[in-house]
């Protein structure tokens, strides 16, 4: 509230003083420093120098550097994401290949099992057939044998009967009977 009159007052005295003494009055009490025009040129000059240097540093060094850092990081992240995607695709492909391989192996194993089962079955069938044939042959042979023996035996029965009859007749009747007669008699009886 007391600033304005004080400023106005000091402004007047300030002008008077600067004309006489030049500098050294800004420290004088009572004036409001921000509105003291005596040192405006100094502030403008030093602001221009310092801000100018800062602007140059920012535009030539700092902004390109930080921008470069951020861009590098951005690129690097994009690259890494691409790499990760590529690796994922590779591993997906590897998994698919593995599944394929596994399915193939399983099918092959099935095939082998089926073929070997069929082969074994065929072999055992052949074996059995061979054995059955051999057995049948033996059976037939022995049947033939039996029939032959039976026929021979039967053929011998006549001889035995005639011999027996001849012996009986000779013993009982004391006479001589020819073999031919006896045979005829036996044949008659057997008939």
């Amino acid at each position, binding site marked *: 509230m007391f600033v304005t009159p004080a400023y106005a007052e000091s402004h007047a005295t300030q002008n008077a003083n600067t004309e006489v003494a*030049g*500098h*050294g009055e*800004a*420290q004088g*009490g009572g004036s*409001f*420093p*921000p*509105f*003291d025009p*005596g*040192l*405006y*040129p*100094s*502030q*403008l*000059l*030093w*602001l*221009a*120098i*310092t*801000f100018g*240097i*800062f*602007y140059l*540093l*920012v*535009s030539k*060094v*700092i*902004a390109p*550097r*930080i*921008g*470069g*850092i*951020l861009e*590098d*990081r951005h690129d*690097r992240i994009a690259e890494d994401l691409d790499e990760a995607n590529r690796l994922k695709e590779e591993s997906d492909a590897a998994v698919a290949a593995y599944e394929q391989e596994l399915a193939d192996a399983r099918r092959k194993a099935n095939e082998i099992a089926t073929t070997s089962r069929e082969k074994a079955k065929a072999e055992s069938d052949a074996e059995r057939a061979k054995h059955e044939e051999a057995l049948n042959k033996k059976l037939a042979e022995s049947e033939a044998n039996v029939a032959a023996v039976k026929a021979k035996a039967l053929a011998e029965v006549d001889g035995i009967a005639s011999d027996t009859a001849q012996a009986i007749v000779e013993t009982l009747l004391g006479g001589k009977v020819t073999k031919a007669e006896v045979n005829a008699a036996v044949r008659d009886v057997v008939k």
Partner: protein
Amino acid sequence: MANDPISQFQLSRLVPIEIGGMDFSFTNSSLFMVATTVVAAGFLMTTTANRGLIPTRLQSISEMAYEFVASMLRDGAGSQGMRFFPLVFSLFMFVLIANLLGMFPYFFTVTSHIIVTFALAMLVIGTVVIYGVMKHGLSFLKLFVPSGIPGVLMPLVVMIEVISFLSRPISLSVRLFANMLAGHITLKVFAGFIVAMGAQGALGFMGAALPLLMTIALTGLEFLVAFLQAYVFAVLTCMYLNDALHPSH
């Protein structure tokens, strides 16, 4: 000196320089302008010197400042506005560091002088006008003629637009200057109360706790204001640059 809240804004000539009858002395204000430049540029350059792909804490502060201003400028003035990035970034960092340095006791606040903030504001407005006229020629004046206004209202609207454009450097500079000035005066006044009341015996000594608490709270507020005013200055710069880039609304 200690009890006068104005004395903190007093300029003192450290190295008197006079050229052509004008006073170009190196003052305490000049010293703190140099300090601001050294601190701001030094911090930004040393923290990013390694160009780390994975930033250190300090490097990420510099990167945050960069991205903060970059997104501000992109939002305010579009991607074309990025050509003004060094200007906006310099202004933001310079004002911010000057404000923050002013928060140290016994330090001088560069931005508490109207001539400094006005010079920065004129730099912005000058850039807007020069770039606008260079890029758009006379059609830069469309800035003052909004489209879709009935003919009767046109003179009135154009007058308002012109006045608002002319008041921009004033509002831009006074806002920053007044905030810093008022904040520092308030802080000093309340801090002065602590000493004054503390000298009044036991009761006053106890009572001095109140202005002490107030001073602590105000210090926090002033840090906020220091950042906020730098931000506001930069945002408004972006908006004004947008007018230079796209004059027809």
